[in-house]
């Protein structure tokens, strides 16, 4: 449902959910031109909706990390990991009112962690080719292949 104008936060800061640039027409100085941004509005909406404003902003910050962050040990954020995380967020059923926290591992993997309403812990770490998962209250733990089927499997295991 579209929020009423009164519900939109009163701020003069630019929207962080910037998804399309329509002013990129060349006007003579074309040599700087490069291919278009590829932000997918649906992914931005999904991630900001499931992880909240701060979670979304953390991922945007992670994207700025260059190789050698974390005292020369860190790898930049894997965009494939981000893609699998988005697929996971489409499938998983989260506890009502809970938003996972998001972390960047030194390996460049993205990790989500959350609790349900009785305090049981859930974790999923997304890499380019594998997804590690853990669920406290069932003892489920393992590694799944990063694929459409693997994502669905992990989402099913970690859904409430």
């Amino acid at each position, binding site marked *: 449902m579209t929020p009423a104008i009164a519900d939109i936060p009163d701020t003069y800061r*630019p929207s962080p959910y*910037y998804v*399309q*640039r*329509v002013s*990129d*027409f*060349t*006007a*003579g100085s*074309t*040599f*700087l*031109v*490069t*291919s*278009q*941004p*590829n*932000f997918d509005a*649906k992914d931005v909406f999904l991630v900001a909706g499931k992880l909240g404003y701060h979670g979304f902003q953390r991922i*945007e*910050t992670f*994207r*700025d990390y*260059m*190789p*050698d962050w974390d005292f020369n040990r860190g*790898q*930049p*954020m*894997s*965009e*494939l990991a981000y*893609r699998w995380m988005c697929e996971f967020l489409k499938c998983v059923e989260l506890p009502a009112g809970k938003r996972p926290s998001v972390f960047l591992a030194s390996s*460049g993997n993205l990790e989500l962690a959350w609790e349900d309403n009785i305090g049981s812990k859930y974790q999923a770490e997304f890499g*380019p*080719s594998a997804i590690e998962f853990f669920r406290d209250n069932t003892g489920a733990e393992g590694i799944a292949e990063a694929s459409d089927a693997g994502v669905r499997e992990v989402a099913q295991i970690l859904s409430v």
Partner: protein
Amino acid sequence: MPTAFPFPDPDRLPSKIARCPILEAVMEIRFVPSRPWDHFPGLFAERFGSIYPREEDTGVSQIPQIVRDRDPSLAHLPYRRFVGDRFALQAGPRIVGLITKRGAYPGWDAFWPAMAEVLQGLEEMRIIRETVRLGLRYINFFDFDIYPQLTLNLCVGGQPMMLPETGLSTVLYREPFRHHLQINNSAVISGPDNKPILGSILDIDTSLAVKAPDIFHQAEAVFRDAHTAEKVLFFGLLNPDFLATLDPVYSRP
């Protein structure tokens, strides 16, 4: 989600058009880097300096870091440009692109081998940890209002919308590609002696979001397919009568 592709497929695709409207073409790879940007200029100069000897600063790196971090649209801009005879190679912390000289598109048979050489160099330099996106963009220019010549019509209440400053931006999906189509009938480019030329831009950016870590060995097939997909959209957009005025050349069957 992806929807039906609304433009008609041409019966056949020209191999070239004699009155070529291509202002500029860009072939680009976006990636997650395995090395910091500081390493790039030296590596590029060493690997590509003989082909692209003139090095320039695009000015993007002079934008304060805090501004670059807050504007996602700046994330994939090039910091350095290496200019050669026929093409310019551009590099940023997360992108490398090859650009044709303005108004001098040499054709796919010259464009692709130059990009293949760039990809080979990137593989040797080991600066890419993960390929994110492959993109192919063609910017066409016509020195008149292009809208009446298109299969796409803009109408208001059933009446054609004929306005002198009209821009359109839309995204079309046709698996596996995503096309970002932009049309504007009030573009100004610089012609000979920087003389301004008013006209229309028809800009198609065809891209593939990569879903596997290693794409290098598939890049040729992906770019070739993207080129064909872009041509299908471009020629599907043009009215057949208008296309005939551009003197299309068809390869023999």
